[in-house]
């Protein structure tokens, strides 16, 4: 299972904030560039996330890993 630190929702929220700041705020050049750079990164991340094609379906088992979380197996369709 992949760990996803920033979700698409996070990326979109941050993007909206960046655009708003670039449009509305009085920014120093360096700050504006840094924001823009981050915006491009978030945009790319969002597009990559949207590009994911596979739906993963798993079944949870009544067995537990060392950390106490239940084990999961791919579910055969």
């Amino acid at each position, binding site marked *: *299972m992949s760990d996803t630190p920033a979700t698409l929702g996070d990326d*979109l929220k941050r993007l909206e904030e960046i655009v708003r700041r670039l449009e509305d705020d009085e920014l120093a050049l360096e700050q504006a560039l840094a924001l823009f750079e981050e915006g491009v990164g978030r945009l790319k991340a969002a597009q990559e996330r949207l590009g994911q*094609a596979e*739906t*993963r379906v798993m079944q*949870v088992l009544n067995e537990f890993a060392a950390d106490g979380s239940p084990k999961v197996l791919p579910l055969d369709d």
Partner: protein
Amino acid sequence: MSNAEEAWSVSKLARTLKRRVEDDFPPTWVKGELVGVKRYPSGHWYFSLRDEMAKVDCTMWKSAAARLKLPLEEGAEVFVLGQPNIWEERTSLRFNVVQVLSASAMGQGAQAVEKIRQALAADGLLDPARKRPLPPFPARIGVVTSTAGAAVRDIITVASRRWPGIELVVANAAVQGTDAPAEIVAALQLVTRVPGIDLVIVGRGGGGKDDLAAFNDDGVCRAIAACPVPVISAVGHEVDVTLADLVADVRAATPSQAAEFALPDRRDVEQRVHVLGSMLMGAAMSLVGSKQDRVARTRERLGGALLERLRRAERRLLNAQGRIAPALARRVERPRMQLARLETRLAPAMHRRIARGRSTMERLAATLDALSPLAVLGRGYAIPRAADGNVLKTRADFVPGAPFTLTVADGTVPARVEDR
């Protein structure tokens, strides 16, 4: 009647009556006594339902009759579910029945459910204020249902269409029978222990009323209420609302609908990403446009690291433009409306940005001017100043024999002008 031409035809009367009766008459449970029960060779059933005051003729078509759990017995007290129907040819009304339950079964079941409902209400579990909003972009959804049922397939199908890349974690549980309540409770608790679950769908495909008992179970309802993440109930039954539906954060009529509620539509989100990209570009372009010539002038007067940073920043901007432009071009045909809206929003934003960019640049230039002597001095230049502090810029400023100071990187040096 004032005018014969205003008279209705019989057909119009029949049609109007039919419309008035049938439109907006929801499926309704009616209690009564079965009389005149007849089963025709076609498989359809005809009977009447009556109480002390009234009687209504009923039909039950073969398809509905096939699901009958008990034989229709003359004189039996029953509950029937149906809708009125008018046969235009004779303008006769029949109540079209789709389901029949014995009064005793219905009565006992309904009483038990009502008791549980009251207990849940007393504990505040039916309070609308308890309902939690669904996460806008769930990454991993728990599904509590029977892996053998249709519900799980419906959810997978809809989820894959709306939001490819979603992870579904299914926890198997019987959804009918005596073990169902305990299995649903255990599955709910199990699936919410899987890391990263943002939402749980609990439900089953369509079933008769008797099959829904597990979703009227006190323990199941309390397990749903105690779930650490929002729960969508999806007990596939259009007519009945179960107690689980009342406790869940969101009620869906079917498992497919639950998947629709749970996930955003990928196309909507793509458009949103696209619009955000365009807005980001617009903001950046106005930023670059307003600053470019100023940057060019500043560049001539500055050396070293600062210039390199500006160059890098410019390159990054151009680079980013190049990366985004093809992506935009590919999608131009779809979000035409969005683009129009975007334009109206961007144009003023760009003008504002340009104006603001200018003042920003002026401030920046002032800062750079203030900084530049230090950088220049560091490279071996010196600033000559007269005793009064004025900078000596031309030959004429240097008076032969006059003392002056040289400001260098780490301080000042006294000096004197020799005779020219």
